[in-house]
């Protein structure tokens, strides 16, 4: 028996997981159209590598990584690219992002799939393969998996995260129950790639079926991986906290798990890695839990790009449903619209109603009861951070380690004053991010400005020197030369000439396509003409104005 450690704080919300575990994972039907966002991973959006009108096959790459921190995007089925345009996505801002719309041809024809022997791959080839196959972490952060294999430090412990601590979500649970052997195969690949020592599969003890299935798969494959039942506590599924529970090690703030010899992958990621290498299938679908206020809560295997509304229709939302939450009730986001597409990070959609999640009573002032500090898994002082965030005292908030907040929501969950604490932290974090970006921009602008001043000064000096030389030369020749017009004057003359030329051109050019215009077009022409007239007027003014413009 392995000795488990524990982390500070945590809560035990009602799990509501059994709602969606009665039925096996169902395959969602092929939708009429798929909207595939190009930003489905941490980092930069992928670059589209297909054109509108192209016919693509299932699994064909349609987006390539645009930076180191980026990944590939693939066509989830065969069909035609209908558009590459902005489309609303599952983001709390409700702002649109670039998406590729694919109209399936219904044939679901795969590209040529080839199994790759991972033992024959070098580390670089393996990483490139995962990058090409769009493998990203499916636990929620969607960090490109190839980058997690890139770290040069030796990994002693490989941890597989099957904790799934948030209420309602059961996609990993069902995946482990039904596809344990594939997951284990993925772990074999990962262990090989990382040359990891021990392998620990952490699953919360409220999922006995998943634990049993994983046990069976591990022993069937005759491996020495330890399937560890960890205590059910939220947020025990946070990678850093699972690492703490399993190994007793704390990932230092601002560092990566690999810095302490640990690497952590989600179980679903392990499965997609197996598919990428053994089956030659890129990441084009995922398991998603549809639960909450629906008639038939269930897990679906759905293609990336499927509209959530299609999936919810399969489970039939109850009448009083008034909003949908992507993710769990602790960290999820309210969907801006129900027809936004499923992405690689979508683990769950909860149909919500006011009876299911009653709106919080009005917030009262903080009474510093520190219930939040008692449950904070990051061991922060949420009541102080709240105070600083509220009063825009961001420097102090940073001093009190706001950056270490994982936004798990336990503070707001226990708050007797019902203060939306996490919202304050998110606000403060985005303000801090913007301010540091502004600071960088200002520093750059200052540098450029100072260089410009320096350059102007230098040019002036050079000119003065030249002038002095010339004067000296002319004095030597004892010839009094008429003074040449100054640079500013010649320039002004040149400008005036250019304006004249532009005017002349404008007068000459008579548009030939002005027949049969709509009133709108005529109005537009009129406005453009007006602007031109104004420009001409100004140009005359500028010509009359001899005074050189102040530019310093």
């Amino acid at each position, binding site marked *: 028996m392995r000795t488990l450690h524990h982390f500070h704080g945590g809560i035990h919300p009602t799990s509501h997981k059994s709602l969606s575990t009665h039925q096996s994972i169902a395959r969602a039907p092929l939708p009429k159209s798929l909207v595939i966002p190009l*930003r489905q991973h941490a980092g930069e959006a992928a670059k589209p590598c297909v054109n509108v009108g192209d016919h693509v096959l299932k699994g064909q790459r349609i987006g390539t990584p645009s930076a180191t921190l980026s990944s590939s995007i693939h066509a989830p089925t065969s069909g035609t690219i209908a558009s590459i345009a902005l489309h609303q996505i599952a*983001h*709390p*801002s409700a*702002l*649109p*992002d670039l998406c590729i719309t694919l109209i399936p041809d219904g044939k679901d024809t795969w590209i040529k799939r080839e199994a790759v022997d991972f033992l024959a791959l070098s580390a670089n080839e393996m990483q490139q393969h995962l990058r090409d196959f769009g493998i990203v972490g499916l636990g929620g952060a969607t960090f490109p998996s190839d980058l997690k294999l890139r770290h040069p430090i030796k990994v002693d412990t490989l941890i597989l995260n099957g904790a799934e601590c948030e209420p309602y979500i059961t996609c990993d649970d069902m995946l482990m129950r039904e596809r344990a052997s594939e997951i284990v195969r993925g772990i074999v690949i990962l262990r090989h790639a990382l040359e990891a020592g021990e392998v620990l599969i952490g699953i919360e003890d409220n999922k006995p079926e998943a634990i049993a299935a994983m046990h069976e798969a591990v022993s069937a494959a005759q491996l020495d991986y330890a399937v560890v039942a960890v205590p059910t506590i939220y947020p025990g599924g946070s990678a850093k906290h699972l690492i703490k529970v399993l190994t007793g090690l704390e990932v230092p703030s601002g560092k990566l798990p690999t810095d302490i010899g640990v690497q952590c992958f989600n179980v679903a990621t392990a499965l997609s890695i197996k598919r990428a290498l053994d089956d030659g299938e890129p990441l084009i679908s995922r398991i998603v839990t549809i639960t909450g206020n629906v008639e038939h809560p269930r897990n679906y295997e759905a293609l990336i790009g499927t509209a959530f509304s299609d999936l919810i229709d399969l489970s039939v939302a109850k009448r009083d449903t008034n909003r949908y939450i992507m993710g769990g009730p602790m960290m999820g986001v309210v969907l801006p619209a129900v027809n936004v597409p499923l992405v690689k990070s979508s683990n769950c959609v909860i149909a919500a109603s006011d009876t299911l999640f009653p709106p919080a009573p*009005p*917030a009262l002032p903080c009474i510093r009861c520190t219930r939040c500090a008692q449950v904070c898994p990051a061991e922060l002082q949420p009541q102080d951070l709240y105070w600083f965030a509220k009063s825009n005292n961001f420097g102090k908030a940073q001093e009190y380690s706001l950056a270490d907040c994982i936004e798990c929501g336990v503070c707001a969950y226990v708050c007797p004053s019902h*203060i*939306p604490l996490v*919202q*304050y932290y*998110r*606000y403060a*974090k*985005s*303000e801090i*991010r*913007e301010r540091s*970006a*502004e600071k960088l*921009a*200002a*520093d*750059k*602008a*200052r540098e*450029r*400005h100072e*260089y*410009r001043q320096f350059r102007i000064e230098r040019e002036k000096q050079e000119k003065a020197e030249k002038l002095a030389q010339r004067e000296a030369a002319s004095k030597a020749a004892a010839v009094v030369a008429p003074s040449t017009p100054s640079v500013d004057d010649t*320039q002004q003359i*040149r*400008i005036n000439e*250019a*304006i004249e030329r*532009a005017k002349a051109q404008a007068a000459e050019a008579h548009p030939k396509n002005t027949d049969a215009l709509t009133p709108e077009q005529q109005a537009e022409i009129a406005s453009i003409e007006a*602007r031109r007239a*104004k*420009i001409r007027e*100004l*140009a005359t003014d*500028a010509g009359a104005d001899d005074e050189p*413009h102040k*530019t*310093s």
Partner: protein
Amino acid sequence: MITALWVMIALAALLGLVLGFSAVRFKIEGNPLVEKIDAVLPQTQCGQCGYPGCKPYAEAIAKGEADINLCPPGGDDGIHKLADLLGVEYKPFGGDAKPKAKAVAFIDEQTCIGCTLCIQACPVDAIVGAAKQMHTVIASECTGCELCLPPCPVDCISMPAIEERLTDWKWKHPVITLRKIA
């Protein structure tokens, strides 16, 4: 009485010497306060404060010649920062100075005649182009100072406001309703 006087005079002389010595010995080049104020200013170099750039404005503030509420690009937040730095009371924007939405210059390339006047006006070298060649703005370097607007003889430069994008979207300050307004 006389002794006391002498003691005081001697003390004054001694302290004067110490002060004089440290003024020479520990002299700091430049005015550190100017640097600090300059660091707070947004570096748009726009001159909207009435000084020809951020550094001159910082110098003016440090000398006590300028008020702290003259920098529209710095916004309300900038005034607060200056007030904190200098230990003075916050002052709202005075006169015509008002914070504006962030914008970058955009050159309408159809109208541009390639006069290079805007290039000379740009304090951060964010406009590229040559004489009789079309000019364009490097949006990432543009500080939105609007200094290129007045010299343009054909008014081809506009200042479109920067719209919120997904990548720089921010969570808003939570609004708590204390009482519903009917």
